[in-house]
C-alpha cells in the first residue's frame, strides 16, 4: 500500500506541469468573457455574505457589524469545503473523454480542483479581510495561525473529494446526493450560529459534524483574535489525516478499475 501511495504522488509529480495547466484552466475559465473577470472571486462572496449578514442579523436581532465578522469567519472555510466537495464529485466523469484517450494519473483531477479553489479562496479571503477589518475585525497574532487552518482544511476537503469522485463514477446518484447533503450540512455546521446554541438531538449532530471544528479553526483567529483551542487543533489534525488516508485508500483501490465503469 505504501508503495502505491508513493507511486501516486510520484506520478503526480511527473505530471506537475499538466496539473498546473489544469489549475490554471479552472481559474481562467470561471471568469473568462465576464466584464469584471477575476474581480468576481471577491465580489460574489462579498455580495453573498452581505445579503446573509443583513438577513440573519435582523432575524437574530444582533448587531450587523459583529454578525458580519462572525459570519465571515464561518463562511470562508465552509465555502471552500462545499465547493471542493461539490466539484470533485463530478471531476472524473467530467473528464471521461480525456481519461479514455490518453494516460494521465487520475488523482490529478480532484487535486487540481482542490488547488484551484484554494487559490480562489485565498484571494477572496485577503480581499474580504480588509473589508472586515474596516467593519470591526481584529488584527492579532492569532492571524499567524491561518496558514495552518487553510492547510488542515485543504487536506480534509481533498480527502472527501477523492472519495466522492470515485463514488460518483460508480453511482451517478452521488451528484444529486452531494448537492442535497451539502445543503443539509450547511445548517448542521455552526456558521450562522454559535456552536452550543442548538441542543438536543440536533445539537448532538452539530457536535458530531466533522466540519464543525474547522469553523473554529478559522473563527478563533478572525473573530476572537486568538489561537484555536489545542483540542480543536488535535481534533482537526486527526480528522484531516484520517480523511486523506481513507480517501487515498479508496481512490488507489479503484484508480485502475473505474475506467471500465465510465
Amino acid at each position, binding site marked *: 500500500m505504501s508503495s502505491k501511495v508513493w507511486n501516486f504522488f510520484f506520478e503526480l509529480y*511527473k505530471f506537475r*506541469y499538466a496539473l498546473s495547466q489544469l489549475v490554471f*484552466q479552472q481559474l481562467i475559465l470561471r471568469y473568462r468573457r465576464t466584464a469584471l473577470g477575476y474581480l468576481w472571486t471577491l465580489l460574489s462572496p462579498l455580495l453573498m455574505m452581505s445579503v446573509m449578514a443583513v438577513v440573519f442579523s435582523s432575524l437574530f436581532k444582533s448587531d450587523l457589524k459583529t454578525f458580519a465578522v462572525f459570519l465571515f469567519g464561518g463562511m470562508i472555510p465552509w465555502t471552500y469545503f462545499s465547493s471542493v466537495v461539490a466539484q470533485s464529485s463530478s471531476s472524473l466523469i467530467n473528464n471521461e*473523454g480525456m481519461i479514455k*484517450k*490518453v494516460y494521465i494519473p487520475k488523482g490529478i483531477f480532484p487535486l487540481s480542483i482542490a488547488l484551484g479553489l484554494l487559490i480562489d479562496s485565498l484571494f477572496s479571503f485577503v480581499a474580504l479581510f480588509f473589508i472586515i477589518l474596516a467593519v470591526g475585525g481584529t488584527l492579532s497574532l492569532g492571524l499567524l495561525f491561518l496558514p495552518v487552518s487553510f492547510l488542515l482544511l485543504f487536506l480534509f476537503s481533498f480527502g472527501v473529494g477523492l472519495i466522492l469522485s470515485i463514488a460518483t463514477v460508480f*453511482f*451517478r446518484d452521488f451528484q444529486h446526493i452531494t448537492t442535497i447533503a451539502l445543503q443539509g450540512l450547511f445548517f448542521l455546521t455552526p456558521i450562522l450560529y454559535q456552536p452550543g446554541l442548538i441542543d438536543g438531538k440536533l445539537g448532538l449532530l452539530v457536535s458530531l459534524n466533522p466540519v464543525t471544528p474547522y469553523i473554529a479553526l478559522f473563527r478563533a483567529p478572525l473573530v476572537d483574535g486568538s489561537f484555536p483551542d489545542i483540542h480543536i487543533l488535535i481534533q482537526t489534525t486527526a480528522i484531516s489525516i484520517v480523511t486523506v488516508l481513507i480517501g487515498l485508500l479508496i481512490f488507489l483501490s479503484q484508480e485502475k478499475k473505474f475506467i*471500465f*465503469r465510465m
Partner: protein
Amino acid sequence: MSSIQVKNLTIKFPVYNDQAHSLKEYFSSIFKRDRSARHDDYLAVNNISFGVNPGDRLGIIGKNGAGKSTLLKAICRIYEPSEGEVITNGTIAPMLEIGAGFHPEFSGRENIYLNGAILGYTKKQLKKIEPEVIAFSELEDFIDTPVKHYSTGMYMRLAFALSTAINPDILILDEIFNGGDAKFMAKAKKRMYSLIDQASIVIVVSHDHSLMQSLCNRVIWIDHGKLIDDGAPEQIVSRYLSA
C-alpha cells in the same frame, strides 16, 4: 533500447445490461442471491502474449471489435491489465484519438500548452515546439482564437501538428491520420513517415492491407481478443483475407 513485452494480457470489460448504474440497482442486487450475476465479463483481450523488439514495425489486423484498439490502449496504459502485464521501455506517443483534452473555450495557443502538458511534454519542450506547431498547422492568423470557432479541418491540423511534434521512441497509431485537404494531407503524410522512420518501434492498426505490407515487417492477427497468427506481413494478410 526500447521494447514492449506483452505477457498473458487479458482485459475484461464488465458488461451491464442496464447502462444506468444507480444506487437503486446496487441495493436491489444486494438482495439477489447470486451477486456475480449482475454483469458478465467481456474479454476484449484474451490471454495475448508477444514481444516487440527495437526496429520492429508491427501491424495489427482483425475485424471490427476484435480487440485491436483495446490492445493499443493497454500498451499506452489507458487500460490496466485485468490479468498479465505489459512492460514498455521508451517514450510512447499514442496517436489514438488526437485532440483529446482540447478545451473549446481556450485559444489554439493555450491548447498547445494544455494538451501538450496532458500528453506529457514539459514546458520547455512546448516553448520550443510552439512556433513549429503553429507554422505546420497553418494557423498563424487564428492561433489566439478559441478553438470552438475552428473548423473541423483546423482543429485536426492543430491536433495533428501537436501530437507529431516530438519524436517518440515508440509510436502507436490507430489508422493513419486522415483529415484536412489534399495539400495538408500530403504534408501530414510526409511528417508521419519521418516520425515512423525515426521511431524505434511502431505499432499500427489499419484496415489498409497494402499499407500494412509496405510499412510493417511483422503483422499479428487478432480475432475475438485472441492472437490467431503472427509473422511476415504478406503471409498473415493473405491468411487473414482467405479466412
